[in-house]
């Protein structure tokens, strides 16, 4: 069975899709596109589509990944265009490769997040980021399905920078300044999400944005040990001769 690895984006208003919504949409798109998806055996056959590291509901992403098992070999570029045409606009297929050695999920070690904060104060944000990075640990609490859970939000954060831009959604503060946080966060258990880092910023420096943040995952993948940069997790599949080594770091930021 051939396996195809797919990078897709979740953009604009479709960032409000949940993981389950996306999984239904992908199953239907696969059928519409006529992709010869493999099914599991048994009483209730399911299409062989698996997901790695899905972004939370409400968070946009330029780098989501899934894997499809197909019964007959397919051309990755045809699958890319066919699947993209069959998904609603906003769920956009960016890249498809034939799977090589090694699991995809294992390669998704780190995420690069962009957090837009319309109406927030840049200086306060910078102070908060400095304090956060200077701290050894920052204990935050999040409400999970099993109740409140406390964990350290600091250790996972490999980088945190502050810049400025314009507010994309023109929400309550139309045209106002927009602080942009970029955070590079290691995937850990429990997962540290951008909103946990924001909680951390509030705890260390009382930094609280006035409106809900607009969060986008720009990239996720393995961390290049030599350069410290985020690599494209599909490069390993593209370049099978390199085996399990990390590919060269590149520019993966889109949108």
């Amino acid at each position: 069975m051939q396996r195809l690895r797919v990078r897709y984006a979740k953009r604009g208003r479709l960032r409000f899709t949940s993981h389950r919504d996306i999984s239904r949409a992908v199953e239907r798109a696969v059928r519409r596109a006529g992709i010869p998806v493999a099914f599991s055996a048994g009483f209730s056959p399911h299409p062989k589509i698996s997901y790695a590291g899905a972004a939370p509901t409400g968070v946009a992403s330029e780098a989501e990944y899934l894997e499809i098992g197909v019964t007959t070999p397919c051309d990755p570029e045809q699958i890319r265009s066919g699947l993209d045409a069959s998904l609603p606009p906003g769920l956009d297929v960016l890249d498809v490769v034939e799977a090589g050695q090694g699991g995809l999920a294992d390669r998704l070690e780190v995420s690069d997040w962009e957090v837009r904060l319309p109406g927030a104060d840049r200086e306060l944000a910078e102070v908060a980021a400095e304090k956060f990075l200077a701290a050894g640990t920052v204990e935050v609490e999040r409400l999970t399905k099993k109740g409140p859970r406390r964990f350290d939000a600091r250790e996972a954060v490999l980088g945190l920078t502050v810049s400025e831009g314009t507010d994309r959604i023109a929400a309550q503060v139309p045209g106002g300044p927009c602080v942009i946080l970029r955070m590079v966060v290691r995937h850990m258990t429990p997962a540290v999400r951008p909103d946990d880092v924001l909680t951390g910023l509030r705890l260390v420096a009382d930094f609280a944005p006035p409106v809900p943040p607009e969060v986008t995952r720009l990239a996720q993948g393995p961390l290049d040990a030599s350069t410290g940069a985020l690599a494209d997790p599909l490069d390993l599949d593209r370049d099978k001769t390199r085996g399990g080594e990390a590919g060269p770091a590149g520019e993966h930021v889109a949108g």
Partner: protein
Amino acid sequence: MPVESIFPRLEALLPKVQKPIQYVGGELNSTVKDWDTADVRWALMYPDAYEVGLPNQGVAILYEILNELPATLAERTYAVWPDLEALMRAEGVPQFTVDAHRPVRAFDVLGVSFSTELGYTNMLTALDLAGIPLHAVDRGEDDPIVLAGGHAAFNPEPIADFLDAAVLGDGEQIAIAVTEVIREWKAEGRPGGRDELLMRLAESGGVYVPKFYDVDYHPDGRIQRVAPNRADVPWRVHKHTVMDLDEWPYPKKPLVPLAETVHERFSVEIFRGCTRGCRFCQAGMITRPVRERSITTIGAMVENGIKESGFNEVGLLSLSSADHSEIGDVAKGLADRYEGTNTSLSLPSTRVDAFNIDLANEFSRNGRRSGLTFAPEGGSERMRKVINKMVTEEDLIRTVTTAYSQGWRQVKLYFMCGLPTETDEDVLGIADLAKKVIKAGREATGSRDIRCTVSIGGFVPKPHTPFQWAGQADHETVDRRLRALRDALRSDKAYGRAIGYRYHDGKPSIVEGLLSRGDRRVGAVIRAVWEDGGRFDGWSEHFSYERWMAAAEKAGVDVDWYTTREREENEVLPWDHLDAGLDREWLWQDWQEAVSGGEVEDCRWTPCYDCGVCPTMGTEIQIGPTGRKLLPLTVV
């Protein structure tokens, strides 16, 4: 002048609400047109949550038909949950359509499709959020025409004050006709304003405009008469019937939601109407006569629908799907065609009949034989005669035993409680029946691994049915019988665990009864309930019986008078001026026969019994067989 999207303002609220995806639109096959390319614009509302409203066939069909018309656009709007409603009020965000997020007040028509009366309070929320005055008399030139349709519109009197107009019956053709009346009136420069537009609609005889009718009452509260208050307004308004469903093969472009909805499948209506004559069934009375889609159109619609949607389930809908004259060939043809594609087929609404097991077997060739559902409705043979649901205990046991022995493990049986003339014994008969079903099933299969679930709800007498005169059972009686049935089912250890029991308590049925057979005076109750926070009355977690009773008392409305009171033959009923085609004398006669246990056959196979519909409406039964077969297709 283009109308601005409210989406940027809505978007800022979405991170704070549950399931925000339901408000963003962007469904596959949805349509967004430029505002300025259309001169007639419809907002279509299903007055319940998106997850219930999106799969609704009525709205989906009209959405497609209207968007196919030149210079016409249609968008959809649904009830927003209270969490978003509160934020919209705080931020001044109006009721919006999910397609282009335009404010509902900017449209020419707000069409609301009522499958059930329990959506009335949600309509008020939408009107209020839209900035449209709740009462039709307070609306001005800039407000849309608020137009009701759907089964509940066959008695729109309880919401008459909030409506500008209502239409009865099939919506396809009348929606187009209304569009053209509006287009012409706008092109002429809107002569006579809103009033003349409504007058033009009313004169046609196909649109009910409540304000052109006055209702007079007797001192005792009964209606004395309902009469037009202007010349040229007809005394009666007639329902619409689409003939030849093959000419209307919608939906062609099924909406595929991103959010999870209650029906995740592509549905094809295989016929409209039903003449089985079940006396409790409003749908069966008001959708006559039976009009089948041909086997070939069904086949083409299923093929197209799967291709366009990517759904992996197909539902063959109708009021009694196994009654299609070529259902056997449809089932076999579709099962052949989709074998090995992981496409499942379902046939809701089947009667108790061994033939239906064969159909179910065709539909479950890939080995999934989990559950079958039958609806005997009445617990005793006597009760089933009263409601004209002709199935004997022997039939039922034989059918269910066949199902078990062919590998089905679970059988669901639907019943009603509170039917006319019902006694405690009739309801307790359900327990006996369920035990016999399990006993026979165990004997037939030699296995104890079979289950039967009894599902039961309160009966609500509906307008335009033989039971429109009946007194509804009070909720104390219904609840007492439901408890007694539960005890009877559980008392017997040998069967208790094999029988599941699901029931709805009697109080919501009383409110549904008030709204179903209410008149214009009930509108004050609906408004008071809404003002007191009443929303989503079809959802048990939102419904409050006490709120409804308090509002009724405040409005001086005697709920018992509207619900549990039996009506006399000559009493003017609130919906008598609305014509479903049924002959009133026939309905009364059928009501009398119900009480004496007389049965009526199906007019598809026996001579016409003069229910009145075909001659009044100029319609006729349209059924097969066509003799054609479904050809195998190469399925992508």
